[in-house]
Every structure is written in C-alpha cells, then in structure tokens.
C-alpha cells in the first residue's frame, strides 16, 4: 500500500485540453473520489493513473514507482503498474468463467499454480460470490458481474485500486448494495483508492476525501462534510445541489458573520461564520432545505415574507418557489409541517419564512472587491 502523487497532469485531445495542470496527493490507504459532471476530465485522470492514456505533461508516482513522467521520459506500461481497475461496464471477459476472470491477473503475474486457487477463492469470498466460481460470467446478474470485477481488481493485491463509475450501469437497489460492498471491502483492506463518479451520494458515502472537478481542474478538495456543507465556488455549490445562489454586496460584519444584501433586495442576509474573508461583493448559497416556512411571522435575522409562485409535491416534502424580499427563493419543507399550520400550500399564498444564518454559505472563492467581481451573475 502506497501513497499516490500527481503533479501538473495535462492531457489534450486534438487541441482541446481535458486535464490542465492537475495536482493531487493521496495518503497511504486513503479513499479519494473524483466527482464531477461528464467531460470534466475525471475518467481521463483515472486512465492516466492506470496507464491506459498517456498524459501530455506531468508526473504520476505511486509508492516508489514513477508511473509516468514527461520530463524524465518515463512511461510505465499498464501491466507493470500493479493497479486494480473496476470498469464502468464491468469488462468481464465473456469467454471465461468467473474463476477464469478472477484468476487471469494472477496468471499474468506468474503466480505459482497451487497458489492461484486459494487466492481466487479468497477474493471471491470478499465479495460473497465463491459459490458461483464455475459459472460463465454471462450467467450472472449485473450486480454479481460488478462484484466479480471487484474481485478481479483485488486479487492481485494491487498497490492502487481504481474505480471508473462502477455503479452507473446498475439499477438503484443494486447500486446501494454494491456500494456498501465496496465500502466494506475498503474498510477491511484499506487500499489506496481513486473512485470516479458523477453521483454525489456515492462520493459522500464512500470517500475519505472528495475532489470536485470542473473543466480539467480540481475545483475543491476536502472531506465529504467540508465539501458538502462549505462549497467554495458557485460551480461546486450548484453541482452539490444548492438551489439558491444570490450575488450580493457585503454591507457589514457581525462578529465572524458577513451581512450581505442580495442584489436588488431590500433585506439583508446574515451568513455563516466566514472567518477573515473580506471584500465588497460575494456569492451566497442557500439550500432549499434550510429555508423554513410558516403562516406566522418569524423573529430574528434572515426572516422574510413572500408570495408562493408555484409548488411541487414531492411526497414527504413540498417544494415551493417564492417571490421574497431577497428575490426568487426555492424552499423545501416537510409536508406535514406546513399542513399543521392549517391546510396545504397553494400558489399565490402570502407566507413568512426564515433562513438560519448557518444555512447561508458564503462562497469563499467568490468573495471579491467590486472591481474584480464584474459580471458575477445573479441566481
């Protein structure tokens, strides 16, 4: 088990950069997720680590090995890197049995014959499929196939485990079960792992750290809790599902908190503690779920009144878009909470609301002086 370090990784296809100068370091045994929309370069990064793509510039090192280094003219062939990869489409060889698939990496690495059987069995036991060893892979379900692929990636005791959107071909129920399989395998073996996905639930549940990627760069990296609750940029906030983003003017401080006036609004918003951030303009993000609604007025900061524009019934929750003193605001409240206030919500209704200051996130990378902000758009 080893740490992984990537420096200045750059890759372009036909003139357009897919990865531009990416730096990343993983500690021994760490599970890191590359999270981002399609086309952000996350899969290409993974393939560069595996050796399936050659980067144009940059270096990748794992443990003591230099995988690739443009300046030192080093390129290690994929078969010599000793990594395990779980592919999106499973990539099981259809002409082999489950056993044949899992044993293949051992055969390639010249493991002695008598050792192969117990190691294959052990790997299949890890994913709970040792009873299906003799089956052709085509006779397995999607979930089972992906488990076999996981076993195949693990069997060679790789120094790195790489996952390329392994759950995206599975349906919702299987996705959860294979996800917990990956989780339990990782907690037992603690191999240094890089996991690529566009699904924030996978990223948040599996990882020690999450790196959100955008246009070939890492936009933000941190623990799942950090990234989820304190996005630093508009892109990360939107990707992680912040429904409301306001651009506004900083008009004061209250202790650690900023007082921000959303553009064109009469009211002000008190943000969560931001430390020492300073500037005259900023973006703030608010999750729909941190907005509270009621038929009677709220006290304290960040309370507002507004008219319901439209509502969507989500089952146990109701989503409402309101015209408020802060501008258009999306709120999501428990269905029964509104109902207990007397009947259901309806469009056109006048309501009161409040956003807890801890739910108003000041996007740290978007704080700037007026001159620099220029064209930061309103939500």
């Amino acid at each position, binding site marked *: 088990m080893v740490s992984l370090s990537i420096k200045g990784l750059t890759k372009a296809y036909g003139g357009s950069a897919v990865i531009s100068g990416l730096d990343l370091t993983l500690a021994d045994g760490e599970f890191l997720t590359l999270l981002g929309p399609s086309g952000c370069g996350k899969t290409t990064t993974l393939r560069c680590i595996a050796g399936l793509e050659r980067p144009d510039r940059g270096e990748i090192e794992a443990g003591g090995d230099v995988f690739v280094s443009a300046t030192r003219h080093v390129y290690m062939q994929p078969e010599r890197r000793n990594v395990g990869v779980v592919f999106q489409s499973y990539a099981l060889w259809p002409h082999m049995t489950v056993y044949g698939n899992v044993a293949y990496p051992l055969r390639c690495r010249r493991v002695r014959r008598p050792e192969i059987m117990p190691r294959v069995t052990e790997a299949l036991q890890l994913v709970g499929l040792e009873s299906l060893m003799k089956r052709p892979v085509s006779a397995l379900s999607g979930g089972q196939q992906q488990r076999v692929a996981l076993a*195949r990636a693990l069997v060679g005791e790789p120094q790195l485990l790489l996952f390329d959107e392994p759950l995206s071909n599975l349906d919702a129920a299987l996705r959860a079960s294979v996800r917990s399989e990956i989780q339990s395998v990782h907690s037992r073996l603690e191999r240094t792992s890089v996991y690529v996905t566009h699904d924030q639930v996978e990223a948040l549940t599996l990882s020690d750290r999450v790196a959100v990627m955008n246009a070939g760069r890492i936009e933000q990296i941190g623990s799942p809790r950090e990234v989820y609750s304190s996005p630093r940029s508009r892109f990360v906030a939107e990707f992680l599902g912040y429904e409301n983003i306001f651009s506004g003017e900083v008009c004061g401080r209250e202790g650690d908190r900023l007082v921000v006036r959303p553009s064109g609004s009469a009211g002000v918003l008190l943000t969560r503690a931001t430390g020492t951030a300073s500037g005259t303009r900023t973006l703030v993000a608010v999750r729909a779920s941190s907005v509270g609604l009621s038929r009677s007025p709220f006290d304290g900061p960040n309370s507002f009144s507004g008219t319901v524009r439209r509502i969507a019934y989500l089952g146990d929750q109701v989503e409402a878009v309101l015209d408020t003193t802060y501008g258009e605001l999306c709120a999501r409240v428990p269905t029964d909470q509104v109902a207990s206030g007397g009947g259901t919500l309806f469009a056109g209704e006048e309501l009161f609301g409040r956003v807890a200051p801890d739910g108003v996130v000041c996007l740290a990378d978007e704080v700037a002086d007026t001159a620099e902000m220029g064209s930061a758009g309103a939500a």
Partner: protein
Amino acid sequence: MKSPQYLRSSRDALRVHGPVLVVFLVLFVPFVLPVVMLVVGALRSAAPGLGGNWTASGFRTVYSNPTTYSTLGDSLILASSVTVISISLGVFLAWAVERTNMPLRRVVTPVMVIVFATPSLFLALGWEMLANNPAGLLNKGFVAAFGTSSGPFDVNTWPGLIGVNVLKTSAIVYLLMIGPMRAMDHSLIEASRSAGASTRRTIFRIEIPLLAPAISGVAMLTFVVMLSVLDVPLLIGVPGNIFVYSTQIFNYIAATAPPAYNSASAMSMLLMVVIVVLLIIQRSLLRKRAFVTIAGKQRASSRVDLGGWRWLCLGVAVLYTLAALVLPVGQILIGSFQPVFGVYGHWTLENFRYVASTPELRHAIANTFEIGVVAGFCAALLAVAISYVQRRSTSKLRRLPEISVWMILALPGLVLSLAMVWAYLSIPGLKNLYDTVAMLIISLVVYVTPVAMRASEGAIVQISTELEDAARVSGASGVRTFVSIVMRLIAPSFVAAWLVGGFLAAGNLDVPLLMSGPNNPTLPVEVYNLYSSTANFAGAAAVLVTFVALFVCIALVGVVVWRLVLVRGVRRRSAMAPGRVVSGGRKAESRGDVLPTESRA
C-alpha cells in the same frame, strides 16, 4: 497540441506506428504495387514481361474508338437497371422477412445464403441452358404446354442479361439489408403509430427514411459491382452480341492478335476513375447523415400483419427461389446427365467420366479447393488485422492500411487480374510466381479481402476497449492481451470471414481468367472454356455439378466448425450482461459506416 516530448524516443514511435507499418507493408506488394504497374503497363508497347518501349498508343487506340464510349453507356444502363430492380427486390424481401408475418419467412435467409455462395457462373450457365432456344427446359415446356412451334424465351438479350444479374445481386442486397432492418429501433416505429400514422404511412415516412443511409450504401455497392462485372456479360451478353465495358476490355486481350495489353490497361483506367469518383461522392454524401437506426434495446418486434397480402409476398419469394435456385440448379443437374444438351429422356454418366478422366479438370478441382481454403483464410486474417489496427492504433497513419484495401473495391476483377499480370511479369523476383496456383491465391486474397473485412469488422468494433484495458491492468502485455482476449472474442467473425472469402475466391471467374492456364487451372475458368470454345454444355454442367459437390463438402466442414466454435462464442457474447456492454460505452465512436455488417453472409 504538439505530441508530448517523451513520445519522441524511437522505441515509443515504433510502438505507436509499428503495427500500422507492418500491416501496410504486408499489403503493399500485393495490393498497391499492381495498381502502380497497371498505370505503367498502359504506357508500354509490348505485352507484360516482353520489354517494349514507352508509348501512348494504347490510350490513343482506346479513347479514339467510339465503342469505348458506347459500351460505357451500356454498362451504365446495365448497372442502373440491375441496381434499381435488385434493391427493390432485396429490400422488399428483407422487409417481408424481418418486419411482417409472411409465411415461411425463416426459409428465405438460407435460400439467400445459398444463392450468394453459388458462383454467378453457375447461375449464368443454368439460365443459358434454361432459356436456350429450342433446347432449354423453359422453351420445351412452353412448346409442350401451348403446342406452338417454338418457345418465346431467349436469355441472350438485354432483359436476360439484366435478369440474371438481378437474381444474384438481390441476394447480396438482401443479406446486407437484413442486419439494419433487424437493428432498427422499434420504438421509433411504435412512436409513429401512436402519433396516429397508419402502417403504410409509417413504412414510407419512418422506416424507409431510417434505412435510407443503409439502402443508399448498398445501392452504391451494387452499382459499382455491376459496372465492372465480367462473368455474366461474358456468358449471357456476348453470345447475343451485347457488349459492355468489361467485355470490351477483355476483347482487347482475348480477341485481338497479338493481345493488346496496353489498350486493355488504358481502357481500365477510365473505369477505375468512374468508380473512384462514385465512391468519393458516396462518402461525402454519407458524412452528412446521422445514423439513428441502430439502437440499444432489442425487443420482440411487433410485426406488420399483412392479411391477405402475405400470400402475395410469399409468391414473390417463391418465384425468386425458383428463378435463382431451383430452375438453374435443376437444369444443370439434368443437363449433366444428358448425352447431348437438349436430349431428354436419355441419361448417361458419360459427362462425369469425362471430368474424371481429364487431368486438367482433376487438377482444377484440387486447385479450386486449395484456393477456397487458403485464400479465404489469408483474406480473413488480413481483414481482422486491418480492422483491429484501424480501431485500436493511436498512430496518425492508422487509416493507411484500410485505405489501400478499399482501393481494391475500385478495382474490378478483370482489371485486378490485368494489374497482377503486369506486376508479376515485369518484376524479376515475382516472375517465378507466374503460372502458379500461388499467384492465383495472392490475387484472389487481394480481391476478397474487402468483403472479408465487411464480414468481420462489425464484430471487432463491438468488442469493448474496456475488455482489453482490463487485461492490461491485470498484468497482461499487449501481445498477451491480443492472444488471450481479442483473438478468442473475434474467432467467430474470423470463421465467418473465412467462409465468405473462401466461397467468393473459389467461385470467381474474373480474376483467374487471365492468369489461369494448363499449369494452374481452376474450375470456373475450365467451365468457361468448355462452354465458350467448344459449346460443350453437358460437359460444363457436369463440371459444375462436381464443383457444387465440392462446395457442399466445404460447407459441411464449415457448418461443423460453425457449431463448434462460432455458435458457442456467439451465445456467450450475446448472453453477456444486460445493457449491451459489449459495445463499449464511452469510448465507442459512432462510425459513419454505410454498409451494415452481416456476418452470416
């Protein structure tokens, strides 16, 4: 973006470009060189291998002769009428089989495969005998039925020439169209129906436009093939004094003393130019089209209920089967047991005794078998290697091998054979090959490789790159990945390409016509000689019957191999995984391919 610095070391360059260059060099001598030599040959005064000097007299002779242009016109008429009719018939039958409830529809594909595998020579001779006046079965039957003094049928006419070609090409059209027809996304059709369109409207407004790219591709192929076809015009047209461009080229060699090789070569140039222009037009037309017919999910399709019309469809299919298979085969079978063609009610084995006792014919049987097996195998090997390199290589040169093979498509069999003669007789080292079976095999490999590529490349495209990536990261080298993963997965398509290539090579007349002599006889050439120089119909029929018996043997071997290797492989692959993962998701590029791949052909 410049190529990264560390790729500039020579070892890396070799790794990237090496496979492409190897494949290209293997192709160069047999594929590219003859074309160059043909151009050179058109400018020489003497026959191949005899020296001579530079002259443009060949070009002058050909292009000042009005026959050149009138036969070109006739070839265009032949090609367009055959294309229109066989596209209509082939597409109609493919549609009836795939999309309707026509009775007996399962029988149609096997019939088509048999017609496809039967050499045109067979069909032409069968019809030559059937519609012979007065000895043919058709005319005899007509006279017996209506009491007239003579029958109305004569095959040595324009309708006869077009008809016999249509019988053959309809099978090719059918086999090329059945794949796209099957792959058509049925939800598109269902969407049209639920939008309120009738069945008929759906067919004309949705199904046919969806298939238009495939149909136009097949039509262009048919047109090009018919523009350059030699065997049927030689057997059907020439006896009726109908000459087309290809028979005219052949005349410069066969009916001119001494053979005017330079004129024949010069005349070939125009044909090649016409075909290349057509192929370029087609490519640029197709580039603009999006292909939407191939969709992911295959469901049991809802077939069109034809009602009473289905008997009419069946009637068309039955008539076709009679004309393309039953009648010519029956006539040749009967003819081979007749002492003299046209004498019914008197049976003899004399013709077969003649075949068995003529060493040249016995040789021809052995040679043809060898050609089928070896040329088919080599063509399949080349086809697989080219498709694979083309798909996987990262080299900028990767299209080079493919392009040089597709050039062959623009090379009619006769022209190719002419080019081969120039190449082999003019170049000192290659001269030893002249007059050998090896030379025939090399030429036929060149000729059938594009078709073998058709039969195999679809399957190669379908193998997801992830399957190879998975092997590489599992510790397998590039070579090991190819052997243990790729070769195993493409084995079924390889066998299919081998069979298709073998049948085509063994039954071909155009290519060996100029190269096959007493030292390296082949069956098609022997049959042609028996027929054209001695009018020995019965003997020719007996040779053909022997020929077919031989093919049936090959086919039986093929079926056994098919059962053992292919069916198992296909079952494994098709059963593999929900969501069709074989056709590798992210990296699979949508290719602007025109012609569908029909590996069962």
